[in-house]
């Protein structure tokens, strides 16, 4: 890491940015947790700074917890930056035949995590409390406490190693009880009278006098249907029928909860332990079994059923409130055309999206810009309903020429108004009426452009055009004119 810039993340607190986390280089450079960013910059101007992302941190820890499942199924989060592994009966599976056991497992874990780029500290002990204490406050980053040696190992650690809150640990330190050994030696009654039962409980949890259970992580999917088969099935038709039953079951539950699914995961459990998973998404929350079944259509084939599927589950992974809609007899031109479109389009978007990918589907929408060619923008088809619609004025042509086409003003002189005649695509147009100008200045922050004066003009033939002068009118110099669109 030599030569790397210090890396810190920041969080906002009371209008200031504070250092939320930092790497080893930053620590070496003199930065510290809780410093203001301004101070940090003064100390190490070369620092690389990015905002803290607690959600991503939590997601990362979550992924690590899943990954730890390779050591033991019994894994749980320990705070925001730790993981408990219940390694009972697992340790002998790790290491070489010569050195199987706990040191091997622990070492393997730390080594792999380091390989991923984490600074990890691990400890194994009789109790979760003792392991936590050693991992956080022990001298070794891979400590193994032999059975029965817990008390001795913990004796010298600070009381904060007992997972006490900062205030309690601070008060204990202030009265001189700095280390766990001192705490152990104290009579329990006066201690409890002052700090409540918490200190004693943590002490007992660490020593093993009180059992502490680790609750393993469980996926939480409240909307989940399950179907087990007496005999394994393998035919596509059978699977489809199974799916139908699951969908009916699931949609009934969604209906009761007033919700609709945005994402569905179908899991097929093969008799040999393999797992096959299929996921579909929906543009809008849905709970119509027929519609959802169509989304799966064509996605059930193409897998090997092996010796057969013995169970299926269907889980709604993302759900949203979906209030029932009364009757669907929408008449075009109704008071809510936008909603009509949305209702109508959603199934189409779903079917197209699940086939070719939602990321490839776009729709055009209004964009707030004064420049006509920038007033339309393509947006992902799945994006929320447009919150912006064009204002009723000024009136613009429905379709624009891209790029605008040069026209020849006749006569070329400019009086500030529209030309009397113009020539476009070798045809002459004599202007009969004109309205304007609509002056649109360039978006100065993007690039220097010229102001345009737009005129809506009608020629003697009844054709309506949208033309503009490029730049400011000049008495002595002919202006450049363009046609940008046609009305009607």
């Amino acid at each position, binding site marked *: 890491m030599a030569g790397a810039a210090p890396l810190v993340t920041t969080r906002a607190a009371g209008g200031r940015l504070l250092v939320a986390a930092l790497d080893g280089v930053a620590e070496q450079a003199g930065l510290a*947790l809780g410093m203001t960013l301004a101070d940090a910059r*003064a100390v190490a101007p070369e620092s690389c700074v990015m905002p803290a992302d607690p959600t991503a941190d939590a997601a990362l820890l979550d992924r690590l917890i899943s990954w730890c499942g390779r050591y033991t199924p019994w894994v749980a989060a320990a705070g925001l930056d730790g993981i408990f592994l219940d390694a009972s009966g697992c340790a002998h599976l790790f290491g070489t035949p010569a050195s199987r056991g706990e040191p091997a497992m622990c070492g393997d874990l730390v080594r792999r995590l380091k390989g991923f780029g984490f600074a990890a500290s691990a400890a194994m002990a009789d109790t979760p409390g003792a392991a936590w204490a050693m991992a956080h406050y022990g001298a070794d980053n891979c400590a193994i406490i032999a059975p029965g040696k817990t008390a001795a190992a913990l004796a010298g650690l600070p009381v904060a190693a007992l997972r006490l809150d900062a205030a309690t640990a601070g008060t204990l330190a202030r*009265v*001189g009880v700095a280390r766990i050994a001192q705490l152990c030696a104290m009579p329990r*009654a*006066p201690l409890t*009278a002052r700090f409540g039962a918490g200190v004693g409980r943590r002490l007992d949890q660490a020593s093993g006098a009180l059992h502490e259970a680790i609750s393993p992580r469980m996926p939480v999917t409240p909307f989940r249907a399950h179907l087990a088969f007496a005999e394994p099935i393998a035919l596509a038709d059978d699977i489809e029928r199974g799916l139908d039953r699951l969908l009916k079951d699931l949609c009934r539950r969604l209906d009761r909860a007033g919700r609709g699914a945005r994402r569905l995961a179908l899991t097929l459990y093969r008799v040999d332990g393999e797992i096959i998973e299929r996921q579909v998404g929906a543009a809008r929350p849905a709970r119509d079994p027929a519609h959802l079944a169509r989304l799966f259509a064509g996605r059930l084939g193409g897998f090997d059923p092996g010796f057969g599927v013995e169970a299926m589950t269907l889980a709604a992974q993302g759900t949203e409130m979906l209030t029932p809609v009364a009757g669907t007899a929408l008449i075009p031109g109704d008071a809510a055309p936008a909603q009509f479109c949305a209702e109508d389009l959603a199934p189409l978007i779903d079917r197209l999206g699940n086939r070719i990918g939602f990321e490839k589907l776009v729709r055009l929408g209004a964009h707030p810009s004064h420049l006509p060619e920038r007033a339309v923008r393509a947006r992902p088809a799945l994006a929320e309903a447009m919150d912006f619609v064009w204002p009723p004025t000024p*009136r613009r042509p429905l379709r624009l020429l891209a790029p605008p086409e040069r026209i020849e003003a006749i006569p070329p002189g400019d009086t500030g108004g529209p030309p009397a005649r113009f020539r476009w695509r070798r045809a002459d147009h004599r202007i009969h009426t004109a309205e*304007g100008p609509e002056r649109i200045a360039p978006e100065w*922050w993007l690039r220097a452009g010229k102001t345009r004066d737009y005129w809506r003009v009608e020629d003697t033939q009844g054709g309506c055009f949208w033309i503009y002068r490029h730049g400011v009118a000049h008495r002595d110099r002919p202006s450049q004119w363009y046609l940008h669109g046609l009305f009607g």
Partner: protein
Amino acid sequence: MTDYVELQVTTNFSFLRGASHPAELVLRAASLGQGAVGVSDRNSLAGIVRAHVAAKEAKVGLVVGARLDLADGLSVLAYPVDRAAYGRLSRLITLGRRRAPKGEYILYRKDVLGHGKGLVFIVLPDDDDDAAAAQTGALCAAFPGFVYLAGYNFCRGDDRRALARRAKLAAHASVPLVALNDVRMHERARRPLLDILTCIREKCTIDNAGLRLDANAERHLKSAADMARLFRGHEAALAHTLEIASRCRFSLDELRYEYPDEVSPDGCPPQRRLAELTWAGAKSRYPGGLSPSVKTQLEHELGLIEELDYAPYFLTVHDLVRFARERDILCQGRGSAANSAVCYCLGITAVDPSRLDLLFERFISAERDEPPDIDIDFEHERREEVIQHIYQKYGRDRAGLTAVVIRYRARSAIRDVGKAMGLSADTVGLLAGQVHGRSGDPVDNAWVREVGIDPDQPRVAMVLAQAQRLTGFPRHLSQHVGGFVITRGRLDELAPIENAAMAGRTVLEWNKDDLDALGILKIDVLALGMLSCIAKGFALLRSHYAKSYDLATIPKEDPAVYDMLCQADSIGVFQVESRAQMAFLPRMKPRNFYDLVIEVAIVRPGPIQGDMVHPYLRRRNGEERVEYPSEALRRVLEKTLGIPLFQEQAMRIAIVGAGFTASQADRLRRAMATFRHAGTIHGFREKMVGGMVARGYNADFAERCFRQIEGFGEYGFPESHAASFALLVYVSAWMKRRYPAAFACALLNSQPMGFYAPAQIVRDARDHGVAVRPPDVNLSNWDCTLELDEAGGGDYALRLGLRQIKGLKRDDADIAAAMRGNGYGDLAAIWRRAGLDGPVLEVLARGDAFGSMGLSRRDGLWAARRFVAAVRNGAAKPLPLFEAAGDDGWGTDAPVALPKMTLGEAVIADYTALRLSLRAHPMALLRRNFAAAVTAGDLKNTAPGARIAVAGLVLARQRPGTAKGVIFATLEDETGTANIIVWPKIFERFRRIVLTARLLKVRGELQREGIVIHLIADHLEDCSGLLATLAARDTGEPANAAAKPPPPARRRHPRDQARALFPSRDFH
């Protein structure tokens, strides 16, 4: 060609809506040849005075008005036709502002109907519908002939149709149509800034602002010809602008300031009353009888006051001072008119003018048509009483605080523009970090490049350019710290009044310069911490030493006081306690009062920028001959040995040396101080330097004088101010010298104030032989007190107050002291009698305040903790029966033996809870680690030029703007303080250490001039980590192995703890 007047102009005093200064708009209208221009800010007249001043200079008419947006859906422009109508408009705006929180307003149609007489209204309808017609009709019915309807042409495509519709609406309502252009900027080129302001207001970025921005740049001031083209076919609408302008002839010049009547309630003419009071005061000020010269001076001053009719002003000030004296609030006047014999006799100041020889004409002159200026400082803790007295006496409708216009500074401008332009917060922070001070100077591209940003990248270049333009724009109004305007009639008919952020305060929309420009008097009611301290000191002298003094009666010219100041022994002394002053005192060697006046004025940016300090010192020490640039200037500069040091002198030089008139000289000072626009300064520079050279002065001297005026402009320090301050310097120094215990006590009880923290004040008191005792629940009050020191031969010892304990509330301390009786025997007694619960007892225990009960800090904490838990568990107070039996009713508590604290631990605990320790200095405990370092106390015995090392806690780091990147640090060890100078080159090498170390070891070369000692750093070492080992130390000897501290958690950096414990004062 004057056939059009723009009547809808929004200046930048409609915050974040207008993109031009009022003066820019007015000047532009003038250059377009328009005879007048209207200004209509949003429910505000805040910018109108600037427009007025500019209009007078440019000789165009100003139509004074405002835009009113009513909560029940109507917007109008309102232009008063005369003074009375202006008063109603001002009241209307006040009404709207007072109803709403600061910065907002709420007005209804009924308010306009109630106050609208004499106002010309231009209705700005949203739409051309029936509602607009009805609203216009209603207004028209109420004020027939005074209502117009606005018509626009913004080049939006269908303008002519819209205009025709509007004309139809006007005809339908029988209201004349008037052509407007809703001007937001004086010229087209301001469009980028206008768009950026819109983004700042709408809290969006330029890229997603969309239709919130205008489509084009048409809202600028246009020529009459342009307007005529745009309103072809509506010529009457153009003519109506002229009609309105000619109807609304009200000018701000018609505002006449009238003094309140209260100054002489019995109807006695103010001048006679002033004379009576003055002569009566003179009798008590000069008990031995008036000398002829004083008598002449008084007569002369009274004559001048009469001539200019300023007696009511002096009486108003006198009334405030008398009120303060009745309430026993210490106060002192300063300012141009304050150091007059009249003010001395009225008790407004305590500086005998006969000691100073200040000329009264310099303060008040007929020629300089400006009101006298007196600021009064009050004890900072009691100023509020005076303010409330003013409100009570004159009423809120007649007295108000003046405003301060908070403007965009270079840094805030870059921040807001950068954000609006969509730069990342990080980039904005980096850019803003490259801006120094308040200047509107362009950001140096080299600096920008240094932090890794390309200044030529288009976005960055735009941000820098627009931010520079935004700098100086008003951002919001704030309240002046104490400038009061008091009127005879209703104040809100003079100018609008709005709510301040602070509850119970109201603020006039105009600031000091606006009031000055219109000749409206204001009185500054200011707060000064040192006056609180001196008042408390005087009280202690009365109660403990039976000595009764006030500012005017303390013994004068005590040589011991000057001896002390010459030694730079000035911690806590007003003004001269800063590092720069301390370094200067031994060189200046003040020996009399006037030396102190100079001392106060000389160590300031003005004289330093003008490079006047060293020449003065050389002349004073006889190293340079005293000579004068001319005989004419000799009279101006004689008192200061030929070197201009005071603002008055600089002004005199402009007059005598460069041929300025008095009012020109004053305009010059003002140009520097307030209307700081590039361009005007250059004009003055040429005029002054040129004028002086033409009169035969050295160009270099002229240049220096000008630079000094530049400095004065921003940090003006006139002799009259310096004299008032010098008195406080003398009084505080006298008290420190003669009654160090009382002085330290008063100083501690006035915290926070001054340059030093309680730790240094306590240390300084102990150095001066004062016994200092720790806070104790049985012996201390909230404030520090004096108690008889049996050991110290009958002198007083300083008992620290419970206020020193971090986290203790005053109410709790007061009740503990009140219920003490014969003392508390244990914590339960406090709990029962004073009703203080567990957390408060714990705070007291942390402060080690149970010593008189025989409880150590740890024992106290252990005992207090039980009460904390009791509260948490919801236990009630002990029953009376148990209480009588001496039992707290919670059963017995097994005894626990807590480990004794080491000295180091005790010191840390002291610093944590009290921010100071009476036990030992941390450096004393760590001394063995710095065996080779010289102690601060030994520096004076070290030869100059020696290469040595010192070590100590960092007390302060400073980077004065005048010192070109040099860092000054102050280190403290157990023997005293050491001053470190870090040159920029060394700083770059040790940047992190210089900025973050709490415990620093510095090696370098010793420099000494007299008793001023500096260490020029060439190597710095961060020893903050050692502070973590402090806990283990019992003495300065190596800690024994058994007491090895628990290993710190690996994630915690040792510096974190040091930072919390030993904070330094950095870069103030």
